[in-house]
């Protein structure tokens, strides 16, 4: 009995969807617009994350060693740092490389270069450049590097300078900026998603309002609520699925256009991002589309089922 009813509900939903013509088309269009907004939100989030990541990547903590620090000890410390969960990567730069970098940076600064030439030996010690998994963790890493830390006892006298205290303010401001941008992104996302869902709900409610008399007739011939509501929910599923497929197709040329025209501006290749995250995006759009449409149909029919 359940399967017969289920089969009839599905068949009825599909037939109603087809016969409703313009009403179905406009509902699908509104769902498509809503899902496009959801898709744009996903792409904006990706763009924001890429921008924030590139800022994060520019932040680091450098440890400068005294010139006499033995390389094996520095590499040992590098290894210790890499064991910390807060550390993403540690780069070792030999003394000669530090000197070369200095020369490179000051190639137009004749005085500095001359002063350097007058020294008989390389005045720079080796360096470790540390990148944290998250900018908020630099303080923990800096604390680890403090001489008071028992783990650092064996490296006593080797570290000449840690630039965290100089960069602290910049890092903290950056942390605030990143979390602010993420919060703002979330708020904008929620507002846009809510507005889109509301518009979709009202469109579907209007579509069902047209059928309110039919719902009354169905009740009077003795149909159960689930049997009346079922086809409307199936129509909701169809709005969601067709809307999601349409949106996914629309995003192919849109992201391709963004790749050719907005790559410099956005800093992210949206077409490649779309390609590599296609299944996740398709899943999100499908779930959001079907959920909002079916929920709208469910709520909208409830009012007319109370006869």
């Amino acid at each position: 009995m359940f399967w017969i009813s289920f089969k009839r509900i599905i068949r009825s939903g599909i037939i109603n969807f087809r016969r409703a013509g313009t009403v179905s088309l406009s509902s699908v269009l509104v769902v498509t617009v809503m899902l496009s907004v959801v898709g744009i939100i996903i792409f904006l989030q990706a763009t924001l994350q890429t921008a924030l990541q590139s800022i994060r990547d520019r932040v680091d903590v450098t440890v400068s060693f005294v010139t006499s620090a033995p390389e094996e000890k520095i590499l040992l410390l590098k290894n210790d740092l890499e064991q910390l969960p807060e550390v993403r990567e540690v780069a070792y730069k030999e003394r000669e490389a530090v000197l070369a970098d200095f020369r490179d940076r000051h190639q137009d600064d004749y005085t500095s270069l001359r002063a350097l030439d007058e020294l008989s030996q390389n005045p720079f010690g080796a360096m470790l450049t540390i990148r944290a998994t998250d900018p908020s963790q630099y303080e923990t890493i800096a604390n680890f590097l403090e001489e008071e830390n028992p783990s650092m006892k064996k490296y006593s006298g080797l570290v000449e300078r840690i630039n965290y205290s100089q960069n602290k303010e910049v890092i903290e401001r950056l942390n605030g900026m990143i979390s602010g941008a993420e919060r703002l992104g979330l708020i904008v996302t929620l507002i846009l998603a809510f507005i889109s869902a509301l518009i979709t709900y009202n469109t579907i409610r209007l579509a069902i309002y047209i059928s309110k008399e039919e719902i009354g007739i169905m009740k009077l011939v003795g149909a159960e609520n689930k049997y009346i509501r079922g086809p409307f929910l199936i129509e909701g599923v169809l709005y969601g699925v067709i809307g999601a497929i349409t949106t996914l197709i629309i995003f192919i040329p849109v992201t391709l256009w963004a790749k050719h025209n907005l790559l410099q501006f956005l800093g992210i290749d949206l077409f490649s991002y779309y390609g590599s995250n296609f299944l996740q995006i398709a899943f999100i759009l499908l779930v959001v589309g079907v959920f909002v449409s079916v929920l709208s149909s469910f709520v909208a029919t409830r009012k007319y089922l109370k006869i």
Partner: protein
Amino acid sequence: MIQFENVSKLYKQDDTLSLDNITLKINQGEFVSVVGHSGAGKTTLTKLIMKEESPTTGSIFVDGVDIEKLKSSDLTQYRRRIGVVFQDFRLLQNKTAYENIAFAMEAVGKSDEEIQTDVPHVLELVDLSNRMMHFPYQMSGGEKQRLAIARAIINQPEVIIADEPTGNLDPMNTQEVVNILKKINDLGTTILLTTHNKEVIHSLGKRVITFEKGRIISDENNSKKI
């Protein structure tokens, strides 16, 4: 079978007393016509029986059961025992004649085989075999009303409520609809017909209840005043 006990219905929106302390009894297998001008309370009477509306005071019993006390799930079962025919047909516009009747059968859980056998049969009874795949908007008023009757009788209800079924029909179609209702009544189904067309009623020679301003002013059986 159907019993009204001191039933009143007040519509609060416009403060209209549509039914005023009505007490009546309709027996199994009866053909009862309810006549009266517009606003006399005929449609309210049918809406109360269908439980589309609830009485302000009083009780309505169907087969001894107070229908006000029916739960939502019981209400569906209750409505399946009643067939309804309306002046404005109330057909499902996006379904064909066949589908309109099939829907009423599907709603009560009839099998596909039963539907495939019974729907063409009932359409033949109301002379609509050739309109099976037509939508209501492709049919005339008389055809729509015959379709509505076919839908009302398909599940063999105990009662048929026909609310002004001839209101939108010409004399020829009116007679045709009345004849169909008479035939259904002859098979044992209780019929409650509301109309303002007294000629139709008197041609039937059955029980006639006359309403005026929400009250029963006469209840006649075979032209004999009770």
